[in-house]
């Protein structure tokens, strides 16, 4: 079926872009699922992101299971999407596995890595902008967001993000 094929492609693309942690995949997920394919609304995707961080498993994989289930019609869709999202990494590792020891100690790889880490930073910056520009619609939103940011900075990242998300959700429930 066409939907399953499309699910496979979208999540394979997300799987390739899942470099440097789950947060980085947010713009990709947003682009593929909300904007390009119209499978979920932005709010629904946010719900997914919140749930994905409260449950075990990487964000991208949880997203695949979730969307695959809802869009692909049940477990089969979920399985195909989940398979698609892990496939790129598996294929690359299939090729690299025999050379693990050599590659991990290679000086050139180390040098590349440094730049790649900065690449991840650029992706996070982009994610903050692309996601934030939809999530924050007025000054009130900005103030709440700044407060959330301040709490995270003050706790030096020791507070699990889920607490902040739930608190802001409750605030949203009261305010909006």
């Amino acid at each position, binding site marked *: 079926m066409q939907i399953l094929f499309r699910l496979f492609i979208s999540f394979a693309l997300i799987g*390739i*872009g*899942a*470099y*440097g*942690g*789950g*947060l*980085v995949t947010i713009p*990709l997920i947003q682009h593929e699922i909300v904007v390009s394919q119209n499978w979920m609304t932005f709010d629904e995707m*946010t*719900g997914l992101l919140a749930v994905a961080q409260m*449950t*075990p*498993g*990487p964000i991208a*994989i949880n997203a695949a*299971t*979730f969307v695959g*289930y809802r869009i692909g019609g049940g477990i089969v869709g*979920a399985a195909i999407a*989940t398979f698609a999202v*892990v496939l790129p*990494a598996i294929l*690359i*590792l299939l090729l*690299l*596995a*025999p050379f*693990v020891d050599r*590659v*991990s*100690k290679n000086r050139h790889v*180390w*040098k590349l*890595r440094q*730049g*790649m*880490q*900065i*690449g*991840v*930073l*650029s*992706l*996070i910056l982009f994610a*903050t902008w692309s*996601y934030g520009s*939809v*999530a*924050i619609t007025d000054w009130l939103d900005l103030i709440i*967001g700044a407060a959330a*940011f301040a*709490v*995270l*900075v003050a706790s030096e990242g020791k507070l699990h993000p889920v607490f902040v998300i739930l608190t*802001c959700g*409750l605030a949203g*429930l009261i*305010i909006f």
Partner: protein
Amino acid sequence: MGKLSCKYEQCQLDGAEVKPRYIDVFVTFFRVGLFTLGGGLVMATVLRHELVLKRRWIRDEDFMSELSIATLVPGAIAVNIAYLQGRRLRGKTGSAVAVFGTVLPSFCIILLIAWGAFPYFSHPKVAAFLRGCAIAVTGQLAFAAFVFGRKQLRSWRNVVVCAVGVLVVAVLKLHPIWAVIAAGGLGYGLCKNVKPLDSPDADKAES
């Protein structure tokens, strides 16, 4: 003890061949996959405890090499580690078992939630709640940017590399992987003095 060797298909530890049963591999990764709440690096720490310290299936040195590769390639770190470790333990079948065990818990839990909770997502009260959540996620992203920016943007070279990354993904609107590739290549070219990372987990945004 003699010289330890650890080729890909088997791991010889303490002179004895360590070849865990497939079911043991599955259960180990399933348990770690089920109880680890947090980013892939958290799981890496737990897995290291299980595989290297507790069960002694793998040498620390080999685990660290694999962790290094797991963070070098795209894809969820948890899955990458599972693949590599599984393969080292029981070959290609082992890798499949390990990945399957890692993914299965979250797969089942998410299915449950998708089936049970999703219909409520469009309720107006829930929408208001989600709007608040979206703001929090933005804050979370900003915080991640703050933490990594502070650590990495220490020289003009790094700033340039970062700017190029942003250019690739925001202006050229290419797939994010290109930003990482461009940044890697540019960083490689620009940065002359490179101190080897002491540990491969000195990087990475948290998920």
